[in-house]
């Protein structure tokens, strides 16, 4: 479980996050949704400590993450897997080396054991027989999947995904979404996904938080989405012709 309370973050006077309070539950796919520029990525980066918050608390289970020492933070970070908007694979390393990287850094496994774990993770995301290719040599969707494999290599307790399906076709997007949901439930991870894709929202949103101009505007489950009477949230949800149609049918 991750809990944030009273998060404020601004860049040179420009307030990006204003008093965000939320709880992200374990074993569930928690979504942060909102328009481009609403502050989703900034919130995610604050949660993993890539940005320092101006004010507020971030709890991992019951540990106050943003106030502990660097060494203690490091222990928590080993339990974090993160999937970046761009994939962020190491481009001078092969697929196998990428997934093996966290194992190299943080375990004392033998090469045999590491190989086995790497192959297990790659198989989990359906990447088979690409171990020796470089990121530039595989497709964008495959890069995302390799990045997921790298993120789960150390059996994380917390998984962060920043727009896992941006730039992918609808079918691949759904595969990635489902993969994230399965992994979350299989290993009972606290997963937080940033997205502005209504397909993902309706597909995997166990819990949804809507950010509007840096503030939390709405919160609920995917079942609640079509019933909301919040104007700004509805503007977002029904921006797509498809969701409007569904609403009409209901």
């Amino acid at each position, binding site marked *: 479980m991750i809990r944030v309370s009273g998060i404020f973050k601004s860049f040179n006077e420009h307030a990006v996050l204003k008093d965000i309070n939320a709880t992200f539950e374990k074993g569930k796919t928690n979504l942060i949704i909102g328009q481009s520029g609403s502050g989703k990525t900034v919130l995610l980066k604050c949660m*993993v400590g*890539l940005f320092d918050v101006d004010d507020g608390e971030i709890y991992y289970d019951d540990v106050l993450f943003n106030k502990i020492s660097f060494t203690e933070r490091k*222990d928590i970070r080993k339990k*974090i897997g993160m999937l970046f908007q761009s994939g962020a694979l190491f481009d001078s390393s092969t697929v196998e080396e990428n997934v093996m990287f966290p194992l190299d*850094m943080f375990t004392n496994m033998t090469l045999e054991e590491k190989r086995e774990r790497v192959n297990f993770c790659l198989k989990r995301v359906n990447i088979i027989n690409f171990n020796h290719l470089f990121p530039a040599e595989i497709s964008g969707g495959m890069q995302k999947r390799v990045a997921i494999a790298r993120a789960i290599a150390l059996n994380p307790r917390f998984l962060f995904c920043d727009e896992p399906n941006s730039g992918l076709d609808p079918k691949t997007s759904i595969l990635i979404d489902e993969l994230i949901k399965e992994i979350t439930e299989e290993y009972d991870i606290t997963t937080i996904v940033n997205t502005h894709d209504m397909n993902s929202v309706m597909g995997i949103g166990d819990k949804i938080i809507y950010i509007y101009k840096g503030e939390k505007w709405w919160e609920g489950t995917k079942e609640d989405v079509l019933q909301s009477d919040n104007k700004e949230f509805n503007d977002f949800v029904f921006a797509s012709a498809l969701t409007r149609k569904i609403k009409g049918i209901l």
Partner: protein
Amino acid sequence: MRIFNLIGSYFLLLGKVFSMPEKKMIYYKLTIKEIEKLGLNSIVIVAIISAFMGAIITIQTAYNTTSPFLPSYLVGLAARDSILLEFSSTIVGLILAGKVGSNIASEIGTMRVSQQIDALEVMGVNSASYLILPKIIATIFFNPFLTMLSIVVGIIGGWSVGVFTGVVTTQEYINGIQYAFIPFYITYALIKTVVFAFLITTISAFQGYNVEGGSLEVGQASTRAVVASSVAILLFNLILTQLLLS
């Protein structure tokens, strides 16, 4: 004001680089890789430039000192001292600032804008140390070899072209090389090399590490890396010369 900010964050980054190395074995492997990438790959360019510079110094000295009153060993002596004192350390340093510096800045800058550095940080890896320390160790360790190579190739280049064009005989040239030789000049050249290696690597890494934006900014950072490390080399050349030779 801005310059003080920059220098401040440069030293902060250095602090991060030299704190808490991650697993030692990984650093060892990375350093070997960097020696290959930053050191071995520079051998050819250093050798070519050194051969030509040695040759040019030799014939220029010869053509400018045609008076019979000047001793015949002068050409070899001039070649030796200019190579040892300035050429193999400072000029080679400037060339490496161009080659190695832009390489480091663009590599690290690309990692920054494509969030690879963020990925390292989130995993709990000290990205500054992981990315920069092996490069510092590799260049500090390997550049002295490049300097030695440059000295040898430069002197040989001077000799072969000098003899080929007939401006100096082998005997005169060797006399010149040996005349009033001060062994400390070699130490001096190597000290400068090590300092320059540190400057090139850290300044370029600093430029790359702090890129914000996209590939355009990476290119700009890479240019800044070359300019800033070249200026630093010239400045420290002055300081070290004053300290070591006065």
